[in-house]
């Protein structure tokens, strides 16, 4: 009997969904030991709607095409010394942070999705997770290859793998991802695929990568957009996981809501670093953090949550705080980068006059009243030959591990600090959001490896001062660390450009 050729959906079902079986020689609960302990109830894995329907042969075909294009551009970028076409070498602070902080997360995501790709009982979910695991490996590797060329000419890339597990500020992304990976499988996909990728990474990949293009960074633009083309599959997976779990059982709703609340806040805190990239590290500006938050959260994010409300899901807790803070956090973070850069593998600098004006335009009174005066004060110190650096290690939040620079949402002059006690120990937090997360899981968060505490306990090669600690990280003032304008990177940049400073002027830097 001849049968009509199957539709895409039917074909994919035949190619994937029938492959698994109910084991009988070993109990299913022993084969899949981890997908029940979170309390998520799945009645029927067959109700899973495949978020995208790529068979492996199609996957190989399209991905190979992407790789061919990507590496052709990377090769030509390095053969033609593409790094010289950057708007300004200051820009590379963002790319150093990317390699130090984001690339390890890509690899971690690859591992995390291998884990859930093994552990979910449903074949459809497993295949989607495995494909994502392979994509994430791609992202980690293409980023290493893109940064490899920059590493040959600029400092701050070469010791990134050494710093990944050691540096105080890299503990922020590291703890974020390890929190997700050590959670149950459903929490992992909700945290990474939904809260992070669907809700938040548009803020990184769209405006920032577009900004990379505008600043002449062909390498980052290429791998960034190429990675994002995989990301749209991942986001779709994230939304499907959430809808599938919510449809399976009403008891799942409060659990998922807690995951969404937690991971919205975790992700939002992590993105403070990205906001700083957009507002301070792009010499030619594309979009401010506040504008991006408006588009990608207040517009697109709220639309998503409107859609989810029919499942009984409400907006993430503290989202209104995040929206109020959009006028402040990047300035506060850059202030810390500026003062703490002797113990980082990137350079910081005072915004140029044209940048101060741009910030005034984008942030209005908030910037002019609270932050411009401080930058001007730092500027006066620089002119007097007393560039200000901090000499202390910051107190960090027990949950997000970000230093204590956030302020009360209604009072930007008052530092926000929260405390909690657990088993006779006192813990500090940057916000109610982070405190709530701790209070829900104190056994987990009391384990956190907090770098400043570790340093004081002698666990950073015995370093006792900030300078010794920086040396242990393989960072030296002027090479990897400190102010951009006294760095080797800057000196080389001038040399390679015939001593011409390329800092864009205000007119050149405006949005086209």
């Amino acid at each position, binding site marked *: 009997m001849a049968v009509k050729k199957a*539709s*895409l*959906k039917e074909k994919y079902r035949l190619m994937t969904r029938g492959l698994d079986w109910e084991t009988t020689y070993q109990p299913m609960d022993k084969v899949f030991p981890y997908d029940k302990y979170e309390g998520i109830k799945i009645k029927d894995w067959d109700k899973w*709607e495949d*978020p*995208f*329907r*790529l068979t492996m042969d*199609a996957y190989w075909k*399209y991905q190979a*095409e*992407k790789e061919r294009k990507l590496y052709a551009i990377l090769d030509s970028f390095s053969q033609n010394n593409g790094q010289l076409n950057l708007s300004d070498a200051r820009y590379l602070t963002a790319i150093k942070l990317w390699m130090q902080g984001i690339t390890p997360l890509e690899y971690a995501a690859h591992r995390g999705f291998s884990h859930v790709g093994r552990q979910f009982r449903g074949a459809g979910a497993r295949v989607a997770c495995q494909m994502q695991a392979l994509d994430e490996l791609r992202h980690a590797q293409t980023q290493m290859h893109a940064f490899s060329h920059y590493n040959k000419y600029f400092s701050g890339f070469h010791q990134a793998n050494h710093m990944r597990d050691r540096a105080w500020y890299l503990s922020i992304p590291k703890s974020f991802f390890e929190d997700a990976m050590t959670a149950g499988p459903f929490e992992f996909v909700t945290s990474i695929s939904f809260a992070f990728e*669907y809700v938040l990474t*548009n803020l990184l*990949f*769209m*405006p920032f*990568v*577009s*900004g990379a*293009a*505008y600043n002449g960074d062909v390498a980052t*633009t290429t791998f960034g*957009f190429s990675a*994002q*083309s995989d*990301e*749209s*599959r991942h*986001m*779709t997976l994230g*939304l499907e996981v959430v*809808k599938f779990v919510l449809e399976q059982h009403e008891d799942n709703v409060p659990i998922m809501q807690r995951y969404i609340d937690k991971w919205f806040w975790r992700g939002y805190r992590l993105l403070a670093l990205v906001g700083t990239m957009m507002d301070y590290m792009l010499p030619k500006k*594309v*979009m401010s953090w506040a504008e991006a938050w408006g588009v990608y959260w207040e*517009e*697109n994010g*709220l*639309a*998503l949550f*409107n*859609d989810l409300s*029919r499942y009984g899901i409400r907006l993430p807790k503290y989202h209104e705080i995040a929206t109020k803070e959009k006028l402040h956090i990047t300035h506060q973070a850059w202030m810390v980068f500026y003062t703490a850069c002797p113990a980082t593998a990137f350079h910081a600098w005072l915004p140029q006059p044209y940048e101060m004006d741009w910030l005034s335009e984008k942030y209005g009174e908030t910037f002019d009243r609270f932050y411009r005066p401080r930058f001007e004060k730092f500027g006066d110190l620089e002119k007097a030959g007393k560039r200000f650096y901090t000499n202390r290690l910051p107190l960090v939040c027990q949950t997000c591990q970000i230093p204590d620079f956030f302020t009360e949402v209604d009072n930007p002059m008052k530092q926000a600090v929260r405390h909690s006690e657990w088993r006779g120990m006192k813990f500090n937090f940057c916000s109610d959001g982070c405190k709530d997360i701790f209070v829900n899981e104190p056994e987990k968060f009391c384990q956190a490896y907090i770098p400043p505490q570790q340093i004081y306990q002698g666990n950073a090669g015995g370093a006792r001062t900030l300078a010794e600690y920086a040396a242990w990280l393989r960072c030296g003032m002027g090479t990897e660390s400190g102010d951009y304008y006294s760095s080797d990177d800057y000196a080389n940049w001038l040399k390679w450009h015939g001593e011409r400073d390329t800092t864009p002027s205000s007119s050149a830097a405006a949005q*086209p």
Partner: protein
Amino acid sequence: MQDKVFISFQNNDEARPVIDAIMEDNPTAVLSEMPAMVKIDAPMRLVVRRETIEKNLGRAFDLQSIHINLISLSGNIDESEDEFILAWGRR
């Protein structure tokens, strides 16, 4: 206010017939350009149709290959050989 779905693509020659087709098939869609990319927003629903792309391109087009130049999207997806739909609302 009607919630928006969006889709964005790299702004290159390969994506052009796709972008043109979307703008043709979705009269309420709004296109905005940023360096190296375009973002298309539409209220509640947006459709990418293979037939329109093929008309623009003058040859056969496999709808799954839009992934190559796709940057991001928002909305529930419904995908077949002929259409790729993004929409808010019950599935």
